[in-house]
């Protein structure tokens, strides 16, 4: 599993730190860090919560295709 750079850029675009996102979705900073680094595969519920916190859709951040890999 590769790094999720789209999550990182979406977070940076909203000027939020990993801690801010973690607090918004109710997980630890380490969990967000692991998702960004591709070390952890989040559940759909957590993906949705992250997308809501960053005002993005699941496609924007988590969908993997030939373009977004």
């Amino acid at each position, binding site marked *: 599993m590769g790094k999720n750079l789209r999550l990182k850029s979406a977070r940076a675009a909203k000027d939020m730190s990993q801690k801010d996102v973690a607090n918004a979705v109710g997980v630890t900073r380490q969990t967000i860090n692991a998702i960004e680094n591709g070390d952890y595969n989040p*559940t759909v519920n957590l993906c949705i919560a992250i997308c809501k916190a960053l005002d993005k859709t699941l496609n924007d951040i988590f969908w993997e295709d030939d373009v977004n890999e």
Partner: protein
Amino acid sequence: MNKKGLDEMQLQRKYRIGNSCFMLLLYLLLLDTGLYGFGFRWVGYPANIMIILTLCCGIYVVRLIAGGAYVGPYAKYEKPVLRTVLMVLCSVCAAGLIIVFFKNAGFSNPDQVNDMSAPILLISSITALIIAAVTGVIIRKQNKGEGE
């Protein structure tokens, strides 16, 4: 999201660590039994089980803390100095009471006194101190990497 307890990644880690520690416990107990079967006894009966259990529990706790799966995201960062001091005082009082009780109780048969209880207590407290020291180091290390 869950406002209490661990988040999903922490839970996953906790289960994985728990499974591996349980397997470690099983292997160590089997090894101990095997050694006993071959006639080799490294420590007397109650102490060997206690040592193996304490070791596995210690490894479990240290790995949980090292993996950041011991406290949840909403745990408050507090320094319970007063609570620690009170607990130490209570422990000392309880230990004193137990010593007084056992001295006064008297044993009808001296064989009832288990000689292994003292080493077990000593080993348990030393292990607990080592675990506390290791977790302190881990927490300090983790907090250093907190700033992003």
